[in-house]
């Protein structure tokens, strides 16, 4: 299969510089978009491609752009923000895209910004990605020198400034309205919606926030067109996907493959199957905040609709594999402690509920659990469902919990009956 998002990456691990990127066809799409297409035409092309957000929620990208007020009466400045705050546990795909080919992200950002007539763009980068920060700053400087950023890009009337903002580490900043507050220099609590960022985002101005991988797809859609994009996936949702695996598999890593590649192919072929001496028990298909899938699901296509039908979410597409040497209760306890710590504390079900869940799980793991704790955990998973909180953090935290109770219920009960962790 042809690699697209990772095609220009170098074997020696260095990032291509501007000249190397352009030699491989880079910035052709930005030039085409800005000099030959109207912003609306760019929006339409991305909408028609069916590109869906690669950050976890899977919202159609072109549709998101279409909510931004356009034309001479629209409020300015408008902002475009790249969400590069990759902090979903088990997820490491955007790191590769930024370290391996920073110009691709910059080109995508220029095109996306043009499509919504943005004046200023920010890349909101997590603090831990030191190498990505260095390479992005270097690439942005090269792009300014070449007049691909700044005023009159490609000799057109369009101008755009691009800045990198390096955050100081908090998971909730990946939530787009929390990210906007953080970028404004406030505590990163999510905002109540509506109004949505497309209408009132950064400093009250129209704003679009897209994930790194999403934006990296945009130059290729402009270059090669809608039909090519639709045919690049295995199951019709369009495009390729960076899939990854971590845990006790033989070859943990990342692979660019057609969107819709099956779970079994990812696990057994690309990740090489389980390490010798351990058995597969289940996996979180798309980061910490997705429901467990188990052995019955290995024929599920890893695309948005199929994974949802199987009872989980594609999420970020980077799977965390659970093996039989790892205690499922301990794993869920680790996940819920993460979510409890990273809750911003703004709404009660999240800050109170998640700490309570983490405490119940700690008790269970240490052999102090009681049978009705399982009901308590199940009711918390329901109480943390969508609609009860401002943002998706708590509903995301409920996903591995509710599915662990479903698939590993016997393991939970063993902890209670034996009054200890059978894995210790």
């Amino acid at each position: 299969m042809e690699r697209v998002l990772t095609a220009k990456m170098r074997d020696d691990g260095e990032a291509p510089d501007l000249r190397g990127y352009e030699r491989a066809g880079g910035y052709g799409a930005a030039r085409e978009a800005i000099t030959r297409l109207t912003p609306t035409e760019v929006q339409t092309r991305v909408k028609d491609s069916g590109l869906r957000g690669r950050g976890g929620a899977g919202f159609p990208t072109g549709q998101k752009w279409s909510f931004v007020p356009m034309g001479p009466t629209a409020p300015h400045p408008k902002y475009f923000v790249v969400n590069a705050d990759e902090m979903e546990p088990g997820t490491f795909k955007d790191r590769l895209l930024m370290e391996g080919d920073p110009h691709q992200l910059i080109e995508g950002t220029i095109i996306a910004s043009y499509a919504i007539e943005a004046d200023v763009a920010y890349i909101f980068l997590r603090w831990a990605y030191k190498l990505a920060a260095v390479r992005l700053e270097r690439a942005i400087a090269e792009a300014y020198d070449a007049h691909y950023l700044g005023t009159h890009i490609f000799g057109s009337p369009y101008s755009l400034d691009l800045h990198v903002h390096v955050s100081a580490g908090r998971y909730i900043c990946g939530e787009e309205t929390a990210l906007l507050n953080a970028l404004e220099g406030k505590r990163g609590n999510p905002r109540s919606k509506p109004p949505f960022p497309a209408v009132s985002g950064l400093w009250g101005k129209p704003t679009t926030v897209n994930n790194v991988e999403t934006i990296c797809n945009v130059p290729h859609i402009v270059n090669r067109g809608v039909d090519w994009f639709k045919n690049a996936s295995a199951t019709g949702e369009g495009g390729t996907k960076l899939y990854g695996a971590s845990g006790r598999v033989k070859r943990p890593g990342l692979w660019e493959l057609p969107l819709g590649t099956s779970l079994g192919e990812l696990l057994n072929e690309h990740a090489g199957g389980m390490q010798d001496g351990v058995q597969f028990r289940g996996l979180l298909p798309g980061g910490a905040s997705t429901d467990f899938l188990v052995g019955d699901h290995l024929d599920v296509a890893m695309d948005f609709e199929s994974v949802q039908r199987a009872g989980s979410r594609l999420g970020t597409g980077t799977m965390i594999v659970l093996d039989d040497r790892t205690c499922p209760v301990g794993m869920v306890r680790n996940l819920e402690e993460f979510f409890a710590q990273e809750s911003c504390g703004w709404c009660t079900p999240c800050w109170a509920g998640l700490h309570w869940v983490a405490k119940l799980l700690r008790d269970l793991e240490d052999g102090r659990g009681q049978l009705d704790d399982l009901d308590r955990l199940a009711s918390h998973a329901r109480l943390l469902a969508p609609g009860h909180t401002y943002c998706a953090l708590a509903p995301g935290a409920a996903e591995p919990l509710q599915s662990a109770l479903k698939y590993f219920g016997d393991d939970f009960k063993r902890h209670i009956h034996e009054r200890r962790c059978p894995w210790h």
Partner: protein
Amino acid sequence: MLTDDERREIEAELARYPTRQAACVDAMKIVQRHRGWVADESLRDLAALLQMTTDELDGVASFYNLIFRRPVGRHVILVCNSVSCWMLGADRVREAMRSVSGAEVGGTSADGRFTLLPIVCLGTCDHAPALMIDDDLHRDVDPARAGELLARYR
């Protein structure tokens, strides 16, 4: 008092945003890079420079995992404790770092050389377990070689 260097670096950040407040995280990180942490006095100076109240700025400072409001050692060890690293031995890595560095988790060694902190997922899960020391990422960490690793940080 902010130094001339700190002030100059903060001014450069202010140019990136339409409001002074928006540069507050950058400004605190600049002070932290120079001094290791953000003391109450620095917070007051920064708040004045950024036209924020001190409490407002402390609210932002305390929101983040990586703004230090207490002194830290010369080197900060951040051991990932999220799920993939946890499965592959993060607890053993943490214990090795604790015993070799002499710093308790959340604390600083008596000689002021190391501070040891837990950290959430570092986004390098295919090379778990992972940790960072200052700006350096270390992957596939072998707890048995903790002494060798820390010897590089004097």
